[in-house]
């Protein structure tokens, strides 16, 4: 995708340094600054210079926005590449994506206690009920709306989670032994494909900053993150519960309802300013795959056993018709959230710890 430099931007050509990096410390929207600098450096000679942004990444943490733009310029058979980076510490009006904290991803399995993890589970059994997962149709709904700057967008979100409501009942030699155990839901994102495709062929791709597969659940900054389970029991109800006595049942409910936005016009997306050409949204698709386990944990040792799992996925595909401002349910070409493994035995290993998608999301323009 090439955008022609406007003649009004013509200045004495400044040859971009290959793979150069530039830093700005002044205040202001980072992406706009990147674009301005790119225009200045790439705005060419009278003969004109075509250039494209081959890759744009915008992210931010509590300190502000960082943008990385990789631009390719072609002139007289020469291809130049420049990389621009900027940051500012002002409150952002652009999309904010947290930078994942440094860390190991994933964590290694928990070290087994002396005697191994078989010992804590000796004489204790768990029975499952209502564990079969089931699909949801329709899977998603779209909301037609505007952000505060009146940029028209759609927001595509799960109507609700797929159905997964297992009950776990413990049988233990004593109440004291039972009270050492808890049961909960563990979830991994196995893959993710979220694309907003525009009329010029450009796509905005949203993905976890840490590529899947990865743990899913509450982010590390939330206070309810758990190294094994989706949450530590302090967030959504019925994700993690403790047993108090033999015969107790912990009821679990998968709450997950994923989703994301797309702007109707690429130029309206605050992350992607001109020189991108006017481009209208033609298609939005979201195909994410997840695996969710029922796990039981022996609290004193941290040993976990997974006793059931389901695989599920979002199959949402929206072909945008015209007029674009008037959405029609008929634009859905696929709209299901499907459980593809309804009654798994829990045997696949799960990713423990590390980043979750909510620690950092990236949006790339390709």
């Amino acid at each position, binding site marked *: 995708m090439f955008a022609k430099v406007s003649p009004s931007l013509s200045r004495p050509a400044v040859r971009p340094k290959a793979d150069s990096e530039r830093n700005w410390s002044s205040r202001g929207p980072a992406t706009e600054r990147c674009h301005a600098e790119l225009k200045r450096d790439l705005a060419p000679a009278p003969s004109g210079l075509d250039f494209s942004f081959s890759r744009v990444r915008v992210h931010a943490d509590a300190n502000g926005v960082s943008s990385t733009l990789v631009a390719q310029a072609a002139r007289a058979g020469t291809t130049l590449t420049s990389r621009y980076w900027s940051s500012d510490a002002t409150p952002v009006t652009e999309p904010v994506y947290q930078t994942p904290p440094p860390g190991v991803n994933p964590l290694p399995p928990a070290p087994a206690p002396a005697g191994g993890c078989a010992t804590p589970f000796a004489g204790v059994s768990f029975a499952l009920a209502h564990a079969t997962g089931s699909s949801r149709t329709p899977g998603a709904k779209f909301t037609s709306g*505007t952000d505060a700057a009146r940029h028209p967008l759609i927001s595509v979100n799960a109507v609700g989670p797929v159905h997964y409501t297992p009950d776990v009942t413990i049988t233990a030699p004593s109440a004291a032994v039972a009270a050492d155990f808890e049961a909960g839901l563990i979830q991994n994102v196995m893959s993710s494909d979220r694309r907003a495709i525009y009329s010029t062929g450009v796509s905005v791709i949203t993905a976890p900053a840490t590529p899947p597969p990865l743990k899913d659940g509450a982010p590390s900054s939330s206070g309810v993150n758990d190294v094994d389970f989706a949450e530590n029991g302090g967030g*959504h109800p019925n994700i993690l519960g403790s047993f108090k006595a033999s015969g107790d049942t912990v009821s679990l409910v998968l709450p997950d309802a994923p989703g994301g936005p797309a702007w109707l016009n690429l130029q309206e997306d605050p*992350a992607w300013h001109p020189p991108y050409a006017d481009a209208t949204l033609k298609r939005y698709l979201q195909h994410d795959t997840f695996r969710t386990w029922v796990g039981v944990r022996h609290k004193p040792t941290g040993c976990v056993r997974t006793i059931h799992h389901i695989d599920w996925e979002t199959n949402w595909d929206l072909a945008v018709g015209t007029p674009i401002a008037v959405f029609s349910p008929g634009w859905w070409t696929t709209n299901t959230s499907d459980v593809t493994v309804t009654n798994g035995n829990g045997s696949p290993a799960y990713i423990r710890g590390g980043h979750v998608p909510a620690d950092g999301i990236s949006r790339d323009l390709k």
Partner: protein
Amino acid sequence: MTNDDLRQSIAYIGPSLALSAPSNPGVALIGYFASDVAAKTIDRLLSARGVPFHLERPTGHWSGTRERLIVTVPPDREQEAQALLAAASDAGLLERADGANGLVHY
């Protein structure tokens, strides 16, 4: 919309025009961060002006960014509602959110 207008609307005591489901057709205003205070402010502002609305605070996912409110109004009241909320934001009564911040969930 003057500051006095805003103050009067915020002080509104009367029936809420909150709907139990979004109007159809409806336009969603997705530009403001969610909080209990924000929800109450929007309820008062729109109700005081006679704008029926549906307010949703999405749940059921994990997010590393702050959640947004989804305020759905009839299309013929969208401009008015948007102006009202923008004025409230300018006055520091609502926190504005642009871009995808708070809209991407796994």
